[in-house]
């Protein structure tokens, strides 16, 4: 293992984040605050408690998920797309490192950024609502697994994308709708039965449900199912990455 290489790739990816720390975090913090003001205070006051949880509190896990899914994907995909686009990838390809070591550096950095972001969002939320976490270990596990899985997914997209448009299509046109329709801001029991069934096909539902359970012990699907689904998605991403490695997909000609 070339640990030094993993370390420098990781550090290099993180450097830009620290350099622009406040810009990077300002937008998620502001949007979180806005969600709380609009949904929590303004609209939320006229919405009933959901399964015993006030609406402002209920949306915290979903809001956090929305941010970390989109940021994991965009950070990781950009992280690998950019060197491919500018050509600086030559250095990674000609260095004595394996595909997996490079992956560890890039995905590790993207996942770390998402974890920092999640912490900042939860911290911001704590100013607006009385945050309670019933199962902190589960909460952190769900968070870490989600950050890693979606950073890996982002890495795949970054390798696949041939241009900037494609890079943005997935987060914008697929992830955001899935998050909004996946019960991030409501319980699916509030939907008509038909739409409840449809929602079960939305993978984000399982992420949000499990994550929310770790806070309030309320969930749309069982926590075991949530955990299994996220592990399935992680395995799929790993399998795709392994295939990309074997074929040198879009990295080497």
């Amino acid at each position: 293992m070339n640990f030094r290489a993993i370390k420098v790739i990781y550090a290099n990816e993180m450097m830009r984040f620290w350099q622009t720390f406040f810009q990077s975090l300002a937008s998620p913090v502001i949007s979180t605050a806005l969600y709380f003001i609009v949904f929590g205070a303004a609209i939320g006051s006229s919405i009933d408690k959901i399964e015993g949880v006030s609406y402002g509190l209920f949306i915290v896990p979903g809001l956090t998920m929305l941010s970390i899914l989109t940021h994991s994907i965009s950070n990781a995909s950009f992280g690998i797309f950019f060197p491919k686009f500018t050509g600086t990838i030559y250095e990674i390809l000609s260095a004595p490192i394996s595909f997996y070591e490079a992956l560890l550096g890039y995905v590790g950095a993207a996942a770390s950024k998402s974890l920092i972001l999640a912490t900042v969002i939860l911290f911001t939320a704590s100013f607006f609502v009385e945050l309670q976490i019933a199962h902190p270990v589960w909460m952190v596990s769900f968070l870490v697994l989600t950050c890693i899985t979606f950073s890996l997914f982002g890495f795949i997209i970054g390798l696949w994308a041939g241009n900037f448009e494609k890079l943005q299509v997935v987060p914008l046109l697929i992830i955001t709708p899935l998050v909004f329709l996946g019960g991030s801001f409501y319980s699916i029991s509030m939907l008509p039965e038909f739409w409840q069934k449809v929602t079960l096909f939305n993978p984000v539902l399982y992420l949000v449900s499990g994550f929310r359970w770790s806070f309030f012990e309320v969930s749309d699907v069982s926590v075991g199912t949530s955990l299994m689904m996220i592990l399935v998605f992680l395995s799929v991403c790993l399998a795709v990455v392994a295939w990309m490695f074997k074929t040198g997909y879009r990295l080497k000609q």
Partner: protein
Amino acid sequence: MNPIISIDNLCKTYDTGFEALKSVSLDIKEGEILALLGPNGAGKTTLISAICGIVSPSSGTVTVSGKDIIKDFRQTRELIGLVPQELTIGAFETVWSTVNFSRGLFGCKRDEAYLEQLLKDLSLFDKKNDELRALSGGMKRRVLIAKALSHEPKILFLDEPTAGVDVELRKDMWAIVRKLRASGVTIILTTHYIEEAEEIADRVGIINNGELLLVEEKDHLMASLGMKQLILELNEVITSIPELLAEFNLELSENGSSVTYTYDTTEGGANIADVIHAISEAGLVFNDLKISQSSLEDIFVDLVKGAA
């Protein structure tokens, strides 16, 4: 001595179906400067990229220091530094952080003293803390060289190092190349400037259309393939070459004031003294004499034409 790089029947067909390398075989000797000379699109960059791990070979093998570049890629790549053809470089890092990054990527321990000296040798030290995007093209090229040398490689590839480079950098670059060679580093550079190969290389490989046409010691190449010309400036203008000199195939200049004797140095039999003697016998008086040797350029043009 075993070659440091051994390329055996290397082929590369791109996904487009284009055959960029057609069964190239080449041994590179340790410590030499090899120039790969060829027109644009000849396959020079593809060849280098295959050795360095940027392009996957379609078939054939390459060993570096006896190790296979695919099976033992860690050992082979540690030995190699690459300066790419394009100015592919980051934007927001500083010069200092990017050379440290490169060194770390190759698994080397941090060594500030070495990197400082390297930046000084490349006249980059005062730019140490500048962001890369603020540098001029020439400075970026220097940074790329510094990055390639950051892990103290035994082999250095320079892909068209002087394309679009100013005189000063070019001079510095050759000084660095000579210094590196003196310390035992093997250097492979590509160029389509013949003078460059002529100026610096020990051996020259000529590549065209994905084929390696020949590899020769530079001096030997010029001597063996080069034709020499003996040019005599005459005292008086003549209209035709005297009968007596027919056997030498002399050429008369258009204005009739000089004759040229062209001979092939490989034929050995060329005897300039005989020619000069015969010319005097024939009653021609000359006031000046010069010998010119064909340059690599002439050789190159001949070869490329011959292959086309």
